[in-house]
């Protein structure tokens, strides 16, 4: 546990030294052409500087408690034929390509292949239709066992395809304590999401 604390401290030090963390919210915020109204503040991470294994190549990455704990990954505004995510330099894996006619199951499989490049284990749970960002979409629940420290995360994702573009939000936090505590804030933010269609 001591080593893990040290690793977290080193990670945060590296993040503070190399990247920009800015506050987003409360109030209305936009990620590309998707808007959301936040009840409280989130922290936004400059994802162009460091690759986070739980969200490689995400459009934006947000957190409430810190990037080693909870992560809200946005994969939004991805057009037909464009790659979802980014390969980790050491894997050089071919990234899945988004197609506007993909079924929800296939989108979840694509998302899984992006966030498990480091060897983490992903297991999808409930997968159901849901309204999201003003249109028809779907919601999925998942578990992610992080490779580095074998910590178990719970996750929830929302997705829709609008104007032939992918809009996917995925939120994960440790199964113990954090997910249950933080997911209501995420769900209330998700309910305000909107895209001009």
């Amino acid at each position, binding site marked *: 546990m001591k080593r893990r604390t*040290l690793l977290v401290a080193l990670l945060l030090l590296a993040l503070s030294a190399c990247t920009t963390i800015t506050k987003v919210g409360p109030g209305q915020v936009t990620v590309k052409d998707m808007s959301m109204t936040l009840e409280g503040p989130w922290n936004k991470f400059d994802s162009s500087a460091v690759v986070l294994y739980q969200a490689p190549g995400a459009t934006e990455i947000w957190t409430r408690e810190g990037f080693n704990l909870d992560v809200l990954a946005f994969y939004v505004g991805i057009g037909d034929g464009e790659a979802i995510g980014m390969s980790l330099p050491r894997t050089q894996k071919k990234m899945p390509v988004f197609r506007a006619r993909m079924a929800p199951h296939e989108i979840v499989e694509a998302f899984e292949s992006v966030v498990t490049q480091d060897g983490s284990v992903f297991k999808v749970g409930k*997968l159901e239709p849901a309204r999201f960002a003003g249109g028809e979409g779907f919601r999925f629940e998942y578990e992610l066992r992080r490779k580095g420290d074998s910590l178990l995360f719970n996750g929830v994702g929302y997705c829709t395809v609008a104007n032939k573009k992918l809009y996917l939000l995925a939120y994960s936090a440790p199964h113990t304590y954090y997910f249950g505590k933080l997911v209501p804030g995420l769900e209330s933010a998700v309910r305000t999401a909107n895209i001009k269609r």
Partner: protein
Amino acid sequence: MQRRRFVLGCGCAALGGLPWAGALAQAEAPEWKMPARFARPDASSDEGSLWAFMDREEHRLKQSAFVIRDKALQDYVTGIVCKLAGEHCPDIRVYIVQTPLFNASMAPNGMMQVWSGLLLRMTSEAQLAAVLGHEIGHYLARHSIERLRDAKSKSAAGQFLGILLARAGGLGAISQLALLAGMLAYSRDQEREADRIGVELMARAGYAPLEASRVWEQLLEELKAGAKDRDEYWDESVLFKTHPPAAERQKVLADLAAAKGAQGRTGADEYRAALAQHRSDFLVDELKRHNFGETRVLLERMQKAFPDDGELQYCLGEAYRLRAQDKDLTEAIAAYRRAELLKGAPAEMYRSMGLVQRKLGDEGQAESAFAKYLELKPTAPDSALIRTYLKRTD
């Protein structure tokens, strides 16, 4: 990349290196004698530092959720290790790790890791014994210590190694182990010796030594197919730049086996039974690698052994569906149809079939497949979504 690291032979890699020309002479070398059990080295010695480093790694591994905690499987693999290692058995601790790659490793303190991808790929107990025997060979010959002392004799590397071993915990544990493994990569001679000991141990334990060369043959088939599928130029000399040509190794292992007498058991049935409870999970992990070339070769090899196995046909269909190039979707449907006629395919096959039929534009067939999935798994966690697929095909 991880596979390549294994083949290139880090300090913890199975089959990391290969005997070749010259090794034939070793087949006729004086009889190898198993050393006595090793005492724990003095903590202040270089070897003691290496053991302490590995003890810390083992402590971390023990807590990892990636270790498969199944007593029956654990006992089975440990039993093979004990047959091979003889009196060293009490000093070796086996950890079966959920990682879908071909690898096993043995640390000088007796920590042995066996990855699930290796277990899936072996077709018999004798094949697993070949890989474990090779790793035990490195352990018995104390190759890690030799490499440590060799690296330390080079001043810059030695200074760095000293810092690495002394300051364990200050860097990320994984990067430390990777650094150490890279610095202590086995030499050609050590790999040659580990192969020779491995075949010797197999023969003494009553396994068919020829299976060692078959392991290598199978791995090569997979690597070549994977490279071809990725449109990569297959150049053995790059992959094995620190090792001899693969074909020669295969031949030498066969010659070593012949020198020992090709008799012995393979234990294919026992192996299948021991893996039965985990095979489906290992296959799912394999498919998630999205490495079509290697997975196809593996599945076709397994199908030869188990031609009536519907789950293997289903997995082949999944491999085609996930790659989805050219005629892959048609191939996927053909594999699912074959699986339907056999036993063992899961209900999820009909969901996959529906997804593929939709892509192929056959809405009627898609609807039938989705309906069949719901019939078999009415309370599946994705049943509500599947019902929306049915509405769209109406």
